[in-house]
C-alpha cells in the first residue's frame, strides 16, 4: 500500500482505501507470505545492492511482502544520486513495510538502517527538501499500515507527485498480487506493471549486480552457503541463516568471522559485510552471541537446541571449563538428547569417542558419561537439552566472553564480558568485578580500554581504570562487545547510535538488535507449532513434535537439501508463516490503528534514552523481566527534568508572582485534580511510585510495552518531520504539542490498563509533525544541556555510557536511592518551574517589556481509549525531536569543547542527593539549580499587571468533582520552548470502573509583544479539541501578566 507523501487530503483517501485493502489482505496474508518466500530470495539479493536500499533490505528479512521486494529491486538499481528515483524506491519500500506487520526485529533493524543511511543521504542530498522527503520516506517504510495517515505529513514535498502515481500503480499491483498465487508470476507481473522510469534503471542495475558466495558454518558443523549481493549488510546474511535454521529467537545469536586465529569478530548486521570483512574470505560461523542467563525462559526448543550445540562446542574447546563430574553429566545429557534412552545394544554400536564431552576425553570420562546416561531414562531430547542447559548455565564461565589484556602494571589478565558486567581474571581467578551498574562509561583509545567506575561506598570520586589490549582492533572489539552486552542485558531497548554529524569523530557503534527484554517479549508472541528439527547425530526423529505438522516441519531439514535457493525458500515459508501468526496475534491485541502510535511511542523511548545518557540509575539486579515500565517512567521523568534543568541553566530566572499559583488553582472547577497535580508536582516521589505500581500491574501492559519497543519507527517519522519542517509555527502550537506529548506518557500507563481499547489514530500524527519542528528549534536553541553525547572522541576512540534504563525487577536499596534522586530532581525542577513559569527562557533579550500570558486548558476525558493513541504519537514526536536536537547540540559542543561533554552529561546525577555520586563534573548543574532557586527567592518581585479570562464549559464539573475515584496515575510534564512554557498535569482516576483522564495544561507564553489573548485562547481550545477529540475541554483560563518593571535582567 502506499504511504502518502502527498498532501493530507490525498493521504486520507488513500488511507481509506488502504484500510480496506488491509482488511482484505489479512486473511490472504498467510498465502501471500508463502508466495513471497520465493520472491524474497530474490529480493534479498537485490536489496543489498543499492545503498539506499540497504536499510530496506534488512526490513525484508521477515519475508515481507512482495512490495518490499519490488521496492528493493527497484531501489537497488537506482543510483543513489538520482534523487527522484531514489525517493521512489523508498516510497515503495515503505509501502511494503506498511502493508504487513513488520516483526519487531524488522522494525528495529530498520531503525538502525535509517540511522546509518542518514549519512549517505546527506551526502547525496542536494536540497533540504529532498533530503527531508527521503528521510521521511524511510521512516515511513518502517511504519505499519495503519500509520499511513500519520505518515502523510504536511511537510511532504516535491517528488511526491511522482510517487503518488507510483503508489497508485503499486496499489494496483498489490491487489493483483494478492490475487495471484504464485510468487514467480507475481514477480514478472510486478516488473511488467512498473511503468516507471525507475524500472529501466532497475533492469540495468540487475545486470550489474555482483554476488558473492558466503559460507556459514553452523553450530552442528554443517555448512550453509548462499549468494549474497556484494554490498549486502550483515543482517541479510544473518536472516538467511536463521531462516535456514528455522530459528525465530535469533537475537541471542550472531555471525562471526575470524580476523586471525585468535580474533573473532562479530559481523555487524547494520553494516555492509564487505566493509567489515575487508579482504577476508566470506566465511562465517554462526554462534551464540548473548548467552541467555536462564535458558528455560527461551520459548522454543529449537532455540535451546542451538544453544546446546554452542555450549557443547564451548565445552569441547575448553572455553567453558568444567569439572570432571560436570563434563560427565553434561555429556550424559547430550547422549540422552542425541541417542535417546540408554540401550545396551544400541550403545555398543556407538563409539563414544565420536562425541566430544571434554577438551581431553578419557576413558574414565566416557564410562562416567554412560553411567549417568543410564539414569536419564525417559527424558525426551528436549528435556535432556533443558537439563543440559540448567547445569551448564551455572558454570561460572557460562556466557563470559574473555579478552586478553594487561592491567596498568603490565600484568596479564583477562577481561570477561558477561550479562552482569565486566569480570577481571588473573589466570583462572576472579580478581575483580564491575557490575554494569557500577560502570559509568566505557571507552577505548588506541589499544587502551577504559572503564569509568562509580565511586565505591566510601569514596568520593569516580575512578577510571585502564587496560591495555594487544592492539587497537582488540580494544575496539572489546568495547563493542561491552556496549552490546550492556545494551542487551541491561537496557529495555537499544540506544540510538549517535547521529553522524559533520565533524563528529569516534565510533558511532551501538548495539542495534533487540535487547533481551525485547526479545523475550517477542518470543512470547511466537505462535507456531514447535518446529521439527533433527539433532545432529540422531538417526531417528526427535520425539518432540506431533506428526501432524510434518508438512511444514520438513522445511527445517533444509540442511541436507542441495540448493540454497530452494532451501531458503522453504525456510522462508515456514518462518513467514510464523510471523504472520505473530502479526495476527498482535492485531488481536490492539486494533490496527493503534499500532502506529505504539511505534511512535517506541520512538519516543529511544529519544528519551538519548537524553537518558545523563541518567544513571543504579541498581544491582539484572532483572529484565517485569518492571520495564517503571523504569521507563522514571526515565521519562528524568527526561522532563533534564529539560527543565536545561531551561533553568540557560534562562535567567524571572521572578514570578506567587499569586499566579493560587489563581491557577482556584479557578479550576476540578479542584481536586488540580490539587493532585500540584501535589504531584512537588512530590514526584509519590508519582514515581505510582508509575511503578502501574507498571507492575498487568501482563498486558507488558505486551503493549513490548509492542512499543518494537516500533522504533516512530523515531523515523519524527526525525523526518523535524528535518523537513522549516516553517515556524505559533508558539501556542508548540505548547499544545508538548502537552500532548505529556499526555501521551500518561496515556501509556492508562492504555495498558485498558488493554487494547485504543484506537483511531486521530488527528494526532499530523499535528504532531507540525508541531515538532518548532519544538526542535526551541530545544535546539535552548539546549545547552548535555543530553547524551556519548562520543566525543578521536577516530580510534569509542565511548559509551551505559545508562541504566534497566528494568528493575527487584528494587534494592541502591536503586531506591537512585529513584529518590531522580524524584528529587523533578520536584526541584517543577517547583522552580512553577515559580518561574513566566520566565522567558533562552531569550533574555525579550525580557524587556515582556508580557506573559498563560493559557490553562483542562481537558477531561471520560473514556480514554480513543484519544490515547493519537496523543501518544504526538507525544513522541515532540519528545523525539527534542531529543534529537539535543543530541545534535551536544555533538556540536563536543567538537568545540570536548571537556564539557562530561559535565553536561552528569547533571541529573548531580541533582541526586547522594554525595558519593557527585563529582566535580556535577558542579555545573548543581550550581545552576542553586542559582535558580536563589534567584527565585532573592529577586524582588516584579510588579505585574494581570488579567484573567476564563472559559468554562458547562458540562464538566460533575464528572471531575467526584473524588471518589481512585487515582491511577498522575503526571506532570513540563516543557519549554523559547518563549513558551507548558505545564501539563495528567491525572487519571477510576470511578466505577470508568477510567478518567484529566489533562491540565498550562501554557505560558512569554514575549515582548502583546499577545492576543482571545486568539491564544481560541487556539488553545481549538488545538485541545483537535488533539483530544474524545475529550472535552472543561475550562480555559487565560491569564495575562505584564511586567511593569522592565529594568530587571
Amino acid at each position, binding site marked *: 500500500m502506499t504511504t502518502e507523501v502527498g498532501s493530507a487530503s490525498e493521504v486520507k483517501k488513500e488511507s481509506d482505501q488502504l484500510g480496506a485493502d488491509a482488511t482484505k489482505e489479512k486473511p490472504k496474508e498467510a498465502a501471500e507470505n508463502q508466495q513471497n518466500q520465493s520472491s524474497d530470495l530474490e529480493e534479498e539479493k537485490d536489496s543489498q545492492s543499492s545503498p539506499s536500499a540497504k536499510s530496506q533490505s534488512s526490513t525484508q528479512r521477515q519475508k515481507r511482502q512482495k512490495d518490499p521486494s519490488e521496492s528493493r529491486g527497484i531501489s537497488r538499481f537506482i543510483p543513489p544520486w538520482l534523487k527522484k528515483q531514489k525517493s521512489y524506491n523508498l516510497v515503495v519500500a515503505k509501502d511494503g513495510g506498511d502493508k504487513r506487520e513488520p516483526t519487531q526485529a524488522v522494525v528495529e533493524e530498520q531503525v538502525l538502517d535509517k540511522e546509518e543511511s542518514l549519512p549517505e543521504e546527506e551526502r547525496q542530498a542536494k536540497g533540504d527538501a529532498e533530503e527531508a522527503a527521503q528521510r521521511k520516506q524511510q521512516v515511513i517504510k518502517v511504519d505499519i499500515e495503519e500509520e499511513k495517515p500519520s505518515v502523510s505529513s504536511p511537510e511532504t514535498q516535491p517528488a511526491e507527485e511522482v510517487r503518488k502515481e507510483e503508489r497508485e500503480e503499486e496499489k494496483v499491483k498489490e491487489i493483483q498480487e494478492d490475487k495471484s498465487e504464485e510468487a514467480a508470476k507475481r514477480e514478472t507481473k510486478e516488473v511488467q506493471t512498473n511503468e516507471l522510469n525507475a524500472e529501466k534503471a532497475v533492469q540495468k542495475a540487475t545486470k550489474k549486480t555482483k554476488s558473492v558466495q558466503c559460507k556459514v558454518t553452523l553450530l552442528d558443523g554443517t555448512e550453509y552457503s548462499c549468494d549474497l549481493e556484494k554490498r549486502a549488510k550483515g543482517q541479510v546474511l544473518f536472516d538467511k541463516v536463521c531462516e535456514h535454521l528455522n530459528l525465530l529467537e535469533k537475537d541471542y545469536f550472531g555471525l562471526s568471522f575470524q580476523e586471525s586465529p585468535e580474533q573473532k569478530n562479530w559481523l555487524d548486521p547494520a553494516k555492509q559485510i564487505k566493509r567489515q570483512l575487508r579482504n577476508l574470505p566470506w566465511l562465517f560461523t554462526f554462534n551464540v552471541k548473548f548467552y541467555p542467563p536462564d535458558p528455560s525462559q527461551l520459548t522454543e526448543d529449537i532455540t535451546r537446541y542451538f544453544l546446546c550445540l554452542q555450549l557443547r562446542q564451548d565445552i569441547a574447546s575448553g572455553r567453558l571449563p568444567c569439572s570432571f563430574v560436570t563434563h560427565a553429566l553434561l555429556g550424559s545429557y547430550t547422549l540422552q538428547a542425541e541417542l535417546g534412552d540408554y540401550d545396551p545394544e544400541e550403545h555398543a554400536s556407538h563409539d563414544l569417542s565420536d562425541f566430544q564431552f571434554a577438551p581431553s576425553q578419557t576413558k574414565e570420562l566416557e564410562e562416567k558419561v554412560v553411567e549417568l546416561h543410564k539414569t536419564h531414562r525417559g527424558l525426551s531430547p528436549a528435556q535432556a537439552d533443558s537439563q543440559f542447559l540448567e547445569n551448564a548455565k*551455572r558454570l561460572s564461565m557460562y556466557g563470559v566472553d574473555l579478552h586478553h589484556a594487561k592491567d596498568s602494571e603490565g600484568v596479564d589478565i583477562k577481561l570477561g564480558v558477561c550479562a552482569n558486567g565486566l569480570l577481571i581474571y588473573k589466570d583462572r581467578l576472579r580478581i575483580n568485578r564491575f557490575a554494569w551498574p557500577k560502570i559509568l562509561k566505557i571507552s577505548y583509545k588506541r589499544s587502551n580500554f577504559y572503564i569509568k567506575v562509580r565511586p565505591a561506598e566510601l569514596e568520593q570520586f569516580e575512578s577510571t581504570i585502564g587496560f591495555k589490549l594487544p592492539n587497537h582492533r582488540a580494544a575496539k572489539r572489546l568495547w563493542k562487545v561491552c556496549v552490546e552486552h550492556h545494551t542487551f542485558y541491561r537496557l529495555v531497548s537499544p540506544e540510538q547510535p549517535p547521529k553522524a554529524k559533520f565533524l563528529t569523530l569516534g565510533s558511532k557503534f551501538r548495539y542495534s538488535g533487540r535487547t533481551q527484554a525485547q526479545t523475550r517479549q517477542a518470543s512470547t508472541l511466537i505462535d507456531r507449532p514447535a518446529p521439527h528439527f533433527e539433532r545432529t547425530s540422531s538417526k531417528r526423529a526427535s520425539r518432540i513434535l506431533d506428526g501432524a505438522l510434518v508438512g511444514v516441519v520438513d522445511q527445517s531439514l533444509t540442511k541436507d537439501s542441495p540448493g540454497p535457493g530452494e532451501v531458503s525458500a522453504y525456510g522462508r515459508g515456514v518462518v513467514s508463516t510464523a510471523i504472520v501468526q505473530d502479526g495476527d496475534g498482535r492485531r488481536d491485541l490492539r486494533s490496527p490503528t493503534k499500532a502506529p502510535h505504539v511505534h511512535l511511542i517506541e520512538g519516543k523511548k529511544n529519544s528519551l534514552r538519548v537524553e537518558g545518557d545523563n541518567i544513571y540509575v543504579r541498581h544491582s539486579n539484572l532483572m529484565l523481566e517485569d518492571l520495564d515500565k517503571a523504569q521507563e517512567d522514571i526515565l521519562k521523568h528524568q527526561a522532563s527534568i533534564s529539560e527543565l534543568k536545561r531551561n533553568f541553566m540557560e534562562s535567567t530566572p524571572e521572578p514570578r508572582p506567587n499569586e499566579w499559583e493560587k489563581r491557577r488553582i482556584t479557578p479550576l472547577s476540578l479542584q481536586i485534580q488540580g490539587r493532585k497535580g500540584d501535589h504531584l508536582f512537588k512530590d514526584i516521589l509519590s508519582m514515581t511510585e505510582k508509575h511503578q505500581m502501574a507498571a507492575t500491574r498487568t501482563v498486558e501492559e507488558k505486551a503493549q510495552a513490548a509492542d512499543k519497543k518494537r516500533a522504533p519507527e516512530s523515531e523515523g517519522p519524527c526525525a523526518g518531520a523535524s528535518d523537513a519542517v522549516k516553517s515556524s509555527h505559533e508558539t501556542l502550537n508548540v505548547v499544545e504539542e508538548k502537552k500532548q506529548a505529556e499526555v501521551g506518557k500518561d496515556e501509556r500507563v492508562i492504555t495498558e490498563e485498558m488493554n487494547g481499547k485504543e484506537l483511531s489514530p486521530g488527528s494526532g500524527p499530523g499535528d504532531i509533525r507540525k508541531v515538532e519542528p518548532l519544538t526542535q528549534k526551541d530545544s535546539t536553541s535552548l539546549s545547552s544541556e548535555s543530553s547524551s553525547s556519548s562520543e566525543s572522541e578521536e577516530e580510534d576512540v569509542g565511548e559509551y555510557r551505559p545508562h541504566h534504563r534497566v528494568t528493575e525487577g527487584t528494587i534494592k536499596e541502591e536503586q531506591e536511592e537512585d529513584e529518590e534522586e531522580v524524584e528529587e530532581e523533578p520536584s526541584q525542577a517543577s517547583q522552580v518551574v512553577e515559580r518561574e513559569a513566566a520566565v522567558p527562557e533562552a531569550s533574555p533579550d525579550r525580557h524587556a517589556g515582556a508580557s506573559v500570558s498563560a493559557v490553562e486548558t483542562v481537558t477531561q476525558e471520560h473514556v480514554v481509549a480513543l484519544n490515547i493513541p493519537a496523543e501518544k504519537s504526538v507525544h513522541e514526536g515532540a519528545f523525539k525531536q527534542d531529543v534529537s536536537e539535543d543530541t545534535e547540540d551536544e555533538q556540536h559542543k563536543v567538537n568545540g569543547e570536548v571537556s564539557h561533554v562530561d559535565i553536561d552529561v552528569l547533571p541529573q546525577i548531580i541533582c541526586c542527593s547522594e554525595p558519593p555520586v557527585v563529582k566535580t563534573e556535577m558542579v555545573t548543574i548543581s550550581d545552576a539549580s542553586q542559582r535558580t532557586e536563589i534567584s527565585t527567592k532573592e529577586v524582588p518581585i516584579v510588579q505585574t499587571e494581570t488579567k484573567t479570562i476564563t472559559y468554562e464549559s458547562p458540562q464538566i464539573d460533575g464528572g471531575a468533582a467526584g473524588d471518589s475515584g481512585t487515582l491511577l496515575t498522575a503526571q506532570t510534564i513540563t516543557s519549554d520552548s523559547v518563549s513558551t512554557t507548558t505545564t501539563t498535569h495528567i491525572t487519571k482516576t477510576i470511578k466505577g470502573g470508568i477510567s478518567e483522564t484529566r489533562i491540565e495544561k498550562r501554557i505560558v507564553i512569554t514575549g515582548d509583544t502583546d499577545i492576543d489573548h482571545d486568539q491564544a485562547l481560541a487556539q488553545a481550545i481549538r488545538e485541545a479539541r483537535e488533539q483530544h477529540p474524545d475529550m472535552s475541554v472543561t475550562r480555559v483560563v487565560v491569564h495575562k501578566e505584564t511586567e511593569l518593571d522592565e529594568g530587571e535582567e
Partner: protein
Amino acid sequence: MGTPGEGLGRCSHALIRGVPESLASGEGAGAGLPALDLAKAQREHGVLGGKLRQRLGLQLLELPPEESLPLGPLLGDTAVIQGDTALITRPWSPARRPEVDGVRKALQDLGLRIVEMADENATLDGTDVLFTGREFFVGLSKWTNHRGAEIVADTFRDFAVSTVPVSSPCHLRSFCGMGGPRTVVAGSSDAAQKAVRAMAVLTDHPYASLTLPDDAAADCLFLRPGLPGVLPFLLHRGGGDLPNSQEALQKLSDVTLVPVSCSELEKAGAGLSSLCLVLSTRPHS
C-alpha cells in the same frame, strides 16, 4: 552440580584428628603458641567429635594423633573438599606439610577424587577457602598465595573462584563462614568487614550477610547431613566461648544451632573450620 547453593553443607562423614601432646608443649608448631591445657583441649575435641556423630548423625572418622604433627588436629588446612573432589593443600608452613598425608589417605579411602597441588610455588591453607555453595572465595593471606588460589580454581572449574585479600594475620575462615545457603556470617573486625565487602563486589550472587560481634563466632559450619525432614545444622561456638555473639546467631533461621566449645584449642589457632573436614560420599545423590 545440583541446584546452586544446595550443595552447601551436604555431608555424610566427618573427619577429625586427635590432639597430640605436642600441641600443648608448643613444640614443633613453631614458636608463638601459648601454652594450653592439653586435657581441656582434648576434652573439647572429644565433645566436638561426639556432637558430629551423635547430634548431626555423621559418620565420624578420627585419625590418630601424631606427636610429630602438633597441629595435626587442624586438618581443615590440609584439604578443600567440594562434591566428590578433594584438593590436598600445600600448607604454607613446611612443618605442616606432612599433615596432608594421613588426610589424603583417609579421603581416598572414602572414594573422593584426590587432586594434588604439585606446584612448588603454591601455598594454600584450607581454612583460607570459603565455599558458599555457589562459588569459592580464597583469602590471600599470610598462608595462601595467588598460585595456591589458582589451583583451587583449576580444581573446581564449575565454580567461580575469587580472591579476597585478607589483611589481618588470620585465615579467611577465621572470621567468616556460611550461616545458610544464602547467608554469609562475618565478624565485626575491620578485616572481616573488608573481606565481606570485597566478596560482595566479586560475587554474581546475592547473599545476605550477618555480622557477629566476635570474629571467631563467624567460623561456623553449615551442615546438612541429609537426614530426612531435619533442619540443617549450624555448628558454632557456644555461649561459653563467645557469649556476645549468641544473640545475633539466633537470627539465623531455618537452621538448628549446635553450640560447641573450643576455646582451648583456639589458643593453638584452631577454629571449627579447621578442626574437622566434612564430606559426602554421595555428593550427587
